[in-house]
């Protein structure tokens, strides 16, 4: 199975986008989830609901609103252009931002659920041994929730790979720049080129299957050692 340059470009872009997005999601989602899990008050439930919002809007519609937000004549668009010298809309950065917003709930929610079940007793124990709150998180909570990190990262990654509506809308489908795999695949289906579509879909599925299988298998091995 040989791939065209356009396809290779799209694969590369997809992987880069998914990887960067996943990393950003974990960086942003982890503290947010931790904060939400440890707040006793009721009002953070509002933040939780807001985080879940991107799920509710159809991707293209969400994309449309994001596009309105990113356009060069909006505050954000102007600020970005002032800072970086280039336009935000239809850039790779825009794709990353859009993907992060769209996939945030998939990362925050499983992490929050996991963090809520970290026994306070163990964090207290760490504190008496001299661990600061950050250290407590790093050395106790995070390792105890490793399976949920795997879940969060793989949901985030997979969803970014498969994401399409938002990306199409704010990316502009520029080959080598914002044309990701899902759009290429979509194009094939749209133009009734089924053979190419099947080939690309099969490749994507096999690749992801291998990747996720390896990830989950490793996690299984490690987590059983601990639970034994």
């Amino acid at each position: 199975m040989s791939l065209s340059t356009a396809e290779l470009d799209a694969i590369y872009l997809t992987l880069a986008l998914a990887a960067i997005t996943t990393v950003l999601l974990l960086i942003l989602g982890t503290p947010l989830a931790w904060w939400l899990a440890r707040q006793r008050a009721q009002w953070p439930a509002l933040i939780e609901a807001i985080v879940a919002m991107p799920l509710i809007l159809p991707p293209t519609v969400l994309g449309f609103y994001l596009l309105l937000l990113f356009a060069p004549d909006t505050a954000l668009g102007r600020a970005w252009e002032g800072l970086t010298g280039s336009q935000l809309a239809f850039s790779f950065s825009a794709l990353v931002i859009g993907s992060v917003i769209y996939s945030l709930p998939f990362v925050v929610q499983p992490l929050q659920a996991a963090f809520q079940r970290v026994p306070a007793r163990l964090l207290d124990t760490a504190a008496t041994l001299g661990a600061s709150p950050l250290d407590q998180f790093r050395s106790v909570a995070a390792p105890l929730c490793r399976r949920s990190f795997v879940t969060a990262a793989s949901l985030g990654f997979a969803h970014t790979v498969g994401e399409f509506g938002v990306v199409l809308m704010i990316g502009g489908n520029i080959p080598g720049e914002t044309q990701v795999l899902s759009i290429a695949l979509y194009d094939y289906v749209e133009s009734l080129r089924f053979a190419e579509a099947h080939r690309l879909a099969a490749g994507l599925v096999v690749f992801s299957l291998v990747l996720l299988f390896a990830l989950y298998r490793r996690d299984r091995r490690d987590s059983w050692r601990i639970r034994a």
Partner: protein
Amino acid sequence: RVAVAANFRATLEAINRQFEHNTGQPVVVSSASTGVLANQILHGAPFDIFFAADRQTVFKLAAADTGPRRGEPFCYAIGSLVLVGGDGRLAQLGDPGLSLAVANPATAPYGAAAMQVLARPEFSQGGGRKLLRAANVVQAYQFWHSGAAELALLPRALAPAGTPVPGHWHLPLEQFALTLRPQAAHPALHSYLNWIRSDTVRALISEAGYRPCP
């Protein structure tokens, strides 16, 4: 039941309103991109007639021998292209500094036509421009409308105020329709087809920015 390419939906709804008013027959409209609808029709979607945005898809469908017996494809409108944005001059198409939104040439006929226009030698300096391929013409419109793209090549139906692009700069944008059931069995379908071919409808179609078929 009518399946219609998204770009013609608004026009068709106006047409249907009059038909419903005249006959009392309800018409149910489903819209999506031409490709999605074609896929659905290939796999048994319960539509009676399909208004595509191009010529190719309809002929492919007619050639596929799955499903119930289909009618002959017929042309119902010819689209034309306009340029929106900037100062309105067509010469801007040669400016590499201006971003331009078009529909995806791989899937949308207006996108393909736009590419044919851009391929003309007078616009070759614009080769380095930022070319935004929207999924379809509507999205191309949105790109321009949101201000994210400076120029867009769109159907006249979407942007009546745009600068027309000469029709001979690209292959004709014929839009074909296809009946998906034998007409004989559906009297309502028969009368609907007659209505579509009526002068009233032709007038409505050209009002919406299309040219009538020959």
